C-alpha cells in the first residue's frame, strides 16, 4: 500500500521474477517477467502468445458465416459480444437492414452477457486480493444467466447465436418471463455484493489508491471499456456512437470519481463494473418491455458476398472497444480480418502503472484490468 518513487533509497540488486504462464492470478496463460528490487517492481514485461490459435489466418480460409464460431472462442467470457461485434462489421460491409426484433434480441443477450462477464470480473478481482466468498456468490448468479443462454442457444459458454443478418433462433416462449424473474432476483444481490466486498475495509485498503491510470496515459495506451471509464473518461460507444438500437434506451455511463481514493485506481475500476451491471439491468427492463414481434431470420442473407471494400466497425464489449477490420475483394471469403482486442491494449498499460508498486499490488492491478487471454492472443 505504499509506492516507492525515490529509487535511490534501496540499494539491493535487481532480480528477475517469472510469474506464469501457469499461475492462478494471471487469469490464463500469461507470463510476466518482473524485474524487482526486493519487493518493489521496477519493470514488467508481459509475454503473450501462449494461447495463439491463428484466428486471423483461419479467417482467410473461411467464408463469412463460418467465422462466427471462431469469434466466440476469442473472448470466451463474453462470446455474445464477439459474435455481435463481428456481425455488425459484416452487416456494415453488406449494408443490411435488420428487423426490429433482431436488434432487441441482440441488445437483450448482449446486456445479459455484460452482467455475466462483469460478475466474473468482480468476483475474480475479489479472489485475487484474497476474498474467496464473493467469487462463489457471483458464480452462483452467473449460472442463472448461463441457464437462460442454454435455453436460448443450447450452449452455456460458446453460443454461435448472433449471425450476420439475424440471430440463430427466436426467443423460447418463456424466455422473457424467466429473464424478468432473474432481474428481480439479481437486483437485490448487487446490494449484497456491496455489503460483502465493495465497502469491506480490507478490500478498500488493498484496492484504493493502487495502480492509478491517469486519463491521458489511458488514452495514449488505447485502454478502453470500464478500465478507461474508471479514469474519469466518459467514453462508451453505446452512448458516444450508438450502434444497434442503444439510442432508444435511457441509461447512464458510470465513470470513476475516486470515491475511496484517487480517480482511476483499482477500486474505481471495480466500482465502475458494479455500476455498469445496474445500468445493464435498466436497459434490459426497457428492452423486455418493448420488444416487438417479427421474423428473426428474414434478413439473413442466403450467401454473403460483399462488394470490394473495407470496413472498420467498433463495438463496446464487456472489456472495452472491440474493432473488426474487414477487407473484401468480392469473394465469399474475406482477404483480411483483423480484430482489435480491447484486453490486448489494456494489458499493454500494465508496465506503465505497476512500476514502483509491490508484487502483491501487481496482482491487484492485473485483476482490476480484467483481461481474457483468449482475446489477447487470438
Amino acid at each position, binding site marked *: 500500500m505504499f509506492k516507492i518513487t525515490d529509487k535511490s533509497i534501496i540499494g539491493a540488486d535487481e532480480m528477475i521474477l517469472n510469474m506464469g504462464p501457469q499461475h492462478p492470478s494471471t487469469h490464463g496463460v500469461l507470463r510476466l517477467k518482473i524485474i524487482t528490487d526486493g519487493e518493489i517492481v521496477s519493470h514488467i514485461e508481459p509475454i503473450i502468445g501462449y494461447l*495463439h490459435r491463428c484466428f486471423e*489466418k483461419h479467417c482467410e480460409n473461411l467464408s463469412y458465416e463460418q467465422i462466427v464460431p471462431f469469434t466466440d472462442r476469442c473472448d470466451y467470457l463474453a462470446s455474445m459480444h464477439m459474435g455481435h461485434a463481428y456481425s455488425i462489421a459484416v452487416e456494415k460491409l453488406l449494408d443490411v437492414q435488420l428487423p426490429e426484433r433482431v436488434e432487441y434480441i441482440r441488445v437483450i443477450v448482449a446486456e445479459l452477457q455484460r452482467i455475466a462477464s462483469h460478475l466474473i470480473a468482480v468476483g475474480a478481482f475479489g479472489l485475487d486480493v484474497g476474498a474467496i466468498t464473493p467469487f462463489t456468490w457471483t458464480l452462483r448468479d452467473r449460472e442463472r444467466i448461463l441457464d437462460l443462454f442454454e435455453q436460448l442457444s443450447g450452449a452455456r459458454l460458446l453460443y454461435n447465436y448472433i449471425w450476420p443478418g439475424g440471430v440463430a433462433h427466436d426467443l423460447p416462449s418463456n424466455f422473457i418471463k424467466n429473464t424478468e424473474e432473474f432481474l428481480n432476483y439479481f437486483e437485490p444481490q448487487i446490494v449484497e455484493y456491496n455489503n460483502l466486498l465493495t465497502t469491506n475495509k480490507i478490500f478498500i485498503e488493498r484496492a484504493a489508491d493502487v495502480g492509478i491510470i491517469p486519463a491521458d496515459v489511458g*488514452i*495514449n*495506451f*488505447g485502454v478502453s471499456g470500464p478500465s478507461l471509464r474508471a479514469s474519469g473518461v466518459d467514453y462508451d460507444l453505446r452512448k458516444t456512437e450508438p450502434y444497434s438500437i442503444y439510442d432508444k434506451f435511457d441509461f447512464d455511463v458510470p465513470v470513476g470519481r475516486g470515491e475511496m481514493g484517487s480517480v482511476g485506481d483499482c477500486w474505481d475500476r471495480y466500482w465502475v463494473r458494479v455500476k455498469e451491471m445496474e445500468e445493464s439491468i435498466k436497459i434490459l427492463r426497457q428492452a423486455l418491455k418493448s420488444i416487438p414481434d417479427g421474423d428473426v431470420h428474414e434478413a439473413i442473407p442466403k450467401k454473403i458476398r460483399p462488394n470490394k471494400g473495407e470496413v*472498420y466497425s467498433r463495438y463496446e464489449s464487456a472489456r472495452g472497444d472491440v474493432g473488426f*477490420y474487414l477487407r473484401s475483394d468480392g469473394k465469399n471469403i474475406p482477404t483480411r480480418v*483483423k480484430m482489435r482486442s480491447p484486453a490486448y491494449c489494456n494489458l499493454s498499460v500494465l508496465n506503465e502503472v505497476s512500476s514502483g508498486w509491490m508484487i502483491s499490488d501487481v496482482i491487484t492491478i492485473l485483476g482490476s484490468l480484467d483481461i481474457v487471454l483468449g482475446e489477447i492472443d*487470438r
Partner: protein
Amino acid sequence: MNSKFLQDKYKDKIKILDNGSVLINSDNWEEISELIKKNNFDYLMSVTSYDLQIDDMLGLAYNFYSTTSRTYLEVRIEFNKETEIQSVANIWQTANWHEREAFDLMGVLFKNHPDLKRILLPEDWEGHPLRKDYKEPEFYNGMPMPKDKSYWE
C-alpha cells in the same frame, strides 16, 4: 470532413478514398503523424496490416479517434514490403504492441521502434504467416509438422 486539415496541407500528395479514409505516401508519414496528433486525434484504436497481393506491396491502416471532438479518421499507407515505415510508438503507445504484431504476422518493418520483436508467435518462428505467399514450414525445431490433416479437415 475529418481529413480536411490533411487535404489543406498536402493537397495532391494524398488521396481520399471512397469511404473517407486517406491514402498517403510512406515518406510523409513521420510529418503527417505529428500533424494528426496535433489535430487532437489522441486515441489510436487499431493498426491493421494487409497484403495487397500485387507487386509485393503491403499496406497499413491506422484508425484514429478523437476523444475531444469525437471524430474518426482512417489513414492508410501502401508500400513495397522492403520499405521501412516510421514507427509512431513514441506518439501513441498503442502502436507499440500493434506494430510488433504487424511485424510478427505480416513482416512489416518499422524504424525507430523501441522494441521490435515477435509478440504472438515464438521468437524462433520463421516467416510471417499472414503474407499470402506464406508456406508452412516442414519442420519446427526439428519436429516435423503434420501434413495429413484428414483427421480435422
